[in-house]
């Protein structure tokens, strides 16, 4: 429900790069046969150019691990010592991946920062030799070139990249809580300028090939080829190699200069950067911005600035040393463990555990063209799904269609799509008021108003027109799916698909299965969700499922804290400084006061006292005054179109004043307020796992972070318990339990973890 910036950027990881390539081949052979035993790298010589091909076995991607590293050293030594070879081309044999980064397992296997520092230093040494190579080395890049892959590429004398959508260059280390540890902090600023280098390393954003060319990150572009004498991907790699060889020869013959002409702006920037005062100002500015955005919760960005600064001000020897040391320190932090855990979880949640469905979903129908319905349509049409969007009135339908168009058009403005592609995608959408064409639908997703009788009515209407194979999915945030399915003729085809608003920004999709939902139906839903680009958790049906159920007790606590006299602004700052991307009071406004009340009421009935806390009366009075949150323009804050700084809604004060409860001083310190919120959340999450609503802690963490904005630096409720210590959390719960009662009673699983310190959710 809340877009989380830091987390959103995690999505930019494309390739799964944690696959460690198994099977280190033992070298029992003689030296001469060493060539045959290399598993990650092979090379051939074309004329006087060595073509070094990287191809990690049994993996879709190449990762920089120990084996690849040592084989690379071997090969490079042969290249450097051969008198026949005058230049080299470095290329991957895998389509869509140059090198996707360092092997994460290699880092997580380390137990001390010294070990990590050593890994960094080895890589630094190697890449320095590459950089100083007298035989020019050309990196031929097709596909993801991230992290260590980029660091290797920028050590080479020349870079040629394919202008393919899959070709992305970037330093995403910061998103894993670490820094580029193989020289990028020193080389990037020299190559693309300090501001651009900071931007790359601090945001971790991936850069497409054409942009990289403009920045000076790559020297030449190669267009991907269509069908010819071979399949396009294969021939494109071959062509890239051919082009790279001509450039390698040209560089060796000194016919081509590896230095590129800088534009006027670039020259001016680099001149400005030569003035110490300007540099200091830039460091200061960047540091301020980072501090503001991270609120001191993420150590990596500040260290990156520090290391870059050291390199520029004290020379590269000091820079490299600082880089490797800070790299080691960061790899040992809780934050990096949390972020790496999230990254792994994200990768896991992008797989379909249920296998391929019997029939691929090609025709989708969405009921309700509201914010959610249109959002679901938007993420479907641009993946090639034929989508019907149905609503009851032309006005509502028109609004929904416009939302889809605007979403696509925004991508055109950002140059992520061409206007032609936008139009072609928009043609996949059919807006209509009737059920025409539903007889061909493979899946219907209803996104009508959250009202059980309405959902029942819609379900019956739809079942009369859809074919037997068609899946009926309900997009609801709290109504139990089994209750919706109660009126279905074929409950095995009914499933819950809980999207988060705004659908095109929020990565999470919570899929809810009832006891009757068939495995094939689940497989279909997961497949559609993956196609839509979602990170998916699959949970069991129950009131509030997983995400809403965790959020509800925290929301209840939010209301109580407000009733106790803490202002919305203060509460917001307490929660954001704990790592939540959106403050708790703002969150209520974003979710919608009416929705919050609806959920609180429903779940309150089911779960009773555990979900009590704040008074529902606060929400009820707000609703009666029309303060529904952002959508009505007023909630705890006042929302005006075009106004960035939102002001408090002073009318709230009287409501809160009339419902004021006395605060209890011993549990009302700032820290206590933060922990009252978080521990209720965590306790409920662990209970969900205990009750089997959640299948794995990973899904619990992914759901909490990507759906609800749980602080990414904590890695999710389960990772938080592991890193913070179950005992400490239980202690806190007990303290609050003493003040407020059962709402804070720790659940059994949490207590089990507290009583046996070796028990961890992540082993």
């Amino acid at each position, binding site marked *: 429900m809340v877009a989380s910036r830091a987390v959103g950027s995690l999505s930019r990881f494309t390739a799964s790069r944690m696959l460690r390539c198994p099977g280190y081949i033992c070298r029992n052979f003689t030296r001469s046969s060493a060539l045959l035993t290399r598993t990650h790298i092979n090379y051939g010589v074309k004329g006087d150019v060595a073509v070094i091909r990287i191809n990690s076995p049994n993996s879709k991607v190449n990762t920089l691990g120990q084996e690849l590293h040592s084989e690379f050293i071997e090969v490079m030594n042969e290249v450097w010592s051969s008198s026949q070879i005058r230049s080299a081309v470095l290329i991957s044999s895998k389509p869509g991946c140059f090198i996707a980064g360092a092997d994460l397992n290699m880092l997580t296997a380390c137990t001390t920062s010294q070990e990590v520092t050593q890994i960094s230093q080895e890589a630094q040494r190697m890449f320095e030799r590459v950089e100083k190579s007298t035989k020019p080395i050309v990196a031929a890049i097709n596909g993801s070139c991230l992290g260590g892959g980029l660091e290797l590429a920028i050590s080479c004398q020349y870079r040629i990249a394919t202008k393919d959508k899959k070709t992305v260059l970037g330093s995403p280390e910061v998103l894993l809580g670490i820094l580029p540890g193989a020289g990028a902090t020193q080389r990037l600023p020299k190559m693309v300028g300090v501001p651009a280098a900071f931007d790359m390393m601090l945001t971790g954003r991936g850069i497409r090939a054409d942009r990289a060319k403009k920045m000076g990150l790559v020297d030449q572009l190669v267009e*991907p080829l*269509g*069908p*010819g004498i*071979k399949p*396009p991907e294969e021939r494109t790699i071959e062509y890239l190699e051919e082009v790279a060889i001509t450039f390698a020869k040209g560089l060796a013959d000194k016919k081509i200069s590896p230095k590129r002409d800088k534009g006027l702006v670039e020259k001016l920037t680099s001149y400005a950067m030569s003035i110490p005062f300007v540099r200091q100002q830039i460091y200061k500015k960047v540091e301020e911005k980072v501090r503001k955005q991270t609120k001191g919760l993420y150590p990596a960005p500040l260290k990156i600035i520090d290391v870059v600064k050291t390199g520029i001000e004290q020379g590269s020897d000091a820079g490299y040393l600082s880089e490797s040391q800070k790299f080691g320190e960061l790899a040992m932090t809780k934050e990096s463990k949390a972020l790496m855990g999230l990254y792994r979880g994200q990768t896991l949640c992008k797989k379909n555990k249920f296998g391929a469905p019997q029939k691929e979903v090609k025709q989708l129908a969405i009921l309700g063209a509201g914010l959610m319905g249109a959002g679901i349509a938007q993420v479907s049409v641009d993946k090639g799904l034929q989508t019907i969007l149905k609503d009851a009135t032309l006005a509502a339908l028109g609004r929904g269609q416009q939302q889809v168009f605007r979403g696509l058009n925004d991508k055109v403005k950002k140059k992520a799509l*061409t206007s032609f592609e936008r139009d072609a995608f928009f043609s996949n959408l059919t807006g209509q008021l009737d059920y025409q064409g539903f007889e061909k639908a493979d899946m219907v997703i209803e996104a009508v108003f959250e009202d059980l009788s309405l959902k029942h009515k819609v379900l019956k209407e739809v079942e009369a027109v859809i074919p037997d194979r068609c899946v009926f999915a309900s997009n609801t945030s709290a109504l139990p799916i089994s209750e919706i399915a109660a009126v279905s003729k074929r409950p095995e085809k009914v499933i819950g698909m809980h999207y988060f608003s705004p659908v095109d920004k929020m990565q999470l999709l919570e899929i809810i299965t009832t006891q009757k939902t068939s495995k094939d139906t689940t497989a279909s839903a997961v497949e559609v969700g993956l196609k839509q680009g979602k990170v998916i958790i699959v949970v069991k049906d129950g009131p509030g499922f997983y995400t809403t159920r965790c959020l509800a007790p925290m929301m209840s606590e939010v209301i109580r804290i407000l009733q106790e006299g803490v202002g919305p602004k203060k509460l917001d700052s307490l929660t954001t400084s704990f790592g939540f991307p959106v403050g708790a009071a703002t969150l209520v406004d974003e979710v919608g006061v009416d929705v919050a009340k609806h959920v609180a009421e429903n779940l309150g009935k089911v779960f009773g006292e555990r979900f009590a806390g704040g008074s529902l009366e606060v929400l009820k009075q707000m609703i009666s005054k029309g303060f529904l949150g952002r959508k009505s323009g007023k909630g705890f804050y006042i929302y005006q179109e075009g106004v960035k700084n939102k002001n408090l809604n002073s009318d709230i004060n009287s409501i809160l004043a009339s419902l004021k409860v006395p605060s209890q001083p011993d549990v009302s310190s700032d820290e206590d307020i933060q922990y009252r919120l978080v521990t209720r959340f965590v306790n409920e999450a662990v209970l969900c796992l205990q009750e089997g609503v959640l299948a794995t802690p990973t899904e619990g963490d992914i759901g909490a972070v990507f759906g609800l904005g749980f602080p990414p630096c904590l890695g999710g409720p389960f990772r938080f318990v592991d890193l913070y210590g179950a005992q400490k959390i239980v202690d806190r719960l007990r303290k609050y339990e003493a003040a407020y009662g059962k709402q804070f009673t720790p659940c059994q699983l949490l207590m089990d973890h507290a009583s046996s310190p070796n028990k961890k959710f992540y082993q």
Partner: protein
Amino acid sequence: MNQDLRMTSLLTYTLKNLPSTSQWALRFSMRPLSCSSQLQAATAVQTKSKQTLAKPNIRNVVVVDGVRIPFLLSGTSYKDLMPHDLARAALSGLLHRTSVPKDVVDYIIFGTVIQEVKTSNVAREAALGAGFSDKTPAHTVTMACISSNQAMTTAVSLIASGQCDVVVAGGVELMSDIPIRHSRRMRKMMLDLSKAKTLGQRLSLISKFRLNFLSPELPAVAEFSTNETMGHSADRLAAAFAISRLEQDEYALRSHSLARKAQDEGLLSDVVPFKVPGKDTVTQDNGIRPSSLEQMAKLKPAFIKPYGTVTAANSSFLTDGASAVLILAEEKALAMGYKPKAYLRDFMYVSQDPKDQLLLGPTYATPKVLEKAGLTMNDIDAFEFHEAFSGQILANLKAMDSDWFAQNYMGRKAKVGSPPLEKFNIWGGSLSLGHPFGATGCRLVMATANRLQKEGGQYGLVAACAAGGQVCHRSFIGASRKSFSWKQNRFIQEWLI
């Protein structure tokens, strides 16, 4: 290599031209092979898969003759003219060549790509100016580089369906002048101004004027759907088929050499002289420039810089020109006393991915049209393929000769085979003769008809690639492609007896 090729082709003509008394040849066609060259030729006639492509219950459509004004590099002698001037010259030339009575013509169709907005139905303006009856309807078609192919096949359909008996089809392109527009915002302001009623309204509109409204809008140089220029696409296509720069230059040199030879020998008989107002009479194409491989190798890539392979020398150039052909129902032609040059038989248009297969049309269309006609590659005596770029032609030849491509992209069991070069564009092609987008189709058809007549072949095949859109430097466009096969018979009277 080109020398050899030319030799080979020459030998072929000689062989074919020897037994020109066909009745004799036909009569002996059942005889087994003998050493005599005459008999070999006779056997060649016999081995055709089909003796005729005539279909029952469908009218035969014939080309009586066709002409074109010389194709000139744009910016040369035609640069001050308008498109309808060129079209009119082609029509006048056709009238003169065929002596067709103007009032017999039922319909006139012209193809063009970049439209002059003043004469958007250029067919009608040119026909009126050339003195055709004002009672003869005329329309203009556009289909990128195959616009005049579309004009001709429209004519064929009109005749075959009995709607018309006599149709003039042609095409015209003037690249010396292209419509450059005011920007959209400027146009909008001008249109609003024309509607403004009071001085106040006008002033308030004018006050919104900004200097950048004056920046002009050029015709897009790229394919609308993909934003890629054709030269760029051709370069990628050549790379996809691993065609080297040298191969492309060699092919371009072949085209120029053959065109020069054909011009010198007077084989380009479809060219009619054009007295350009205020200038000298233009009598021949001026883009034929046989160069040397060394000189061609010096050129820098024109599109994919700095390492691409498509250069100005191995691409067709921007051209001004017009062409026209007279198409009749066979019985009408005979009744009027004409000796038609060729039958127009089967045709087919195909289209595919505008990004990666923009210029591969001939590969896709050729096997289909052959199948439709019931012929094989071996039956064809004359191939005329539009040469957009050397790389494009060579890619098509490679694709047609690849089982892998046929199986994976065309859904066919096996390749169709590439046309033998000794039968392929032997009087030059678009690379050397020029390529006025709208007019090239008629040139291809007349070159085929004239070659068949000259060499004594029976079947010819025309193919061209086209794109759906705009023009770019030294190249043109291709989105849908067509191919065209027909049977020609130089002994038309005998056949009719």
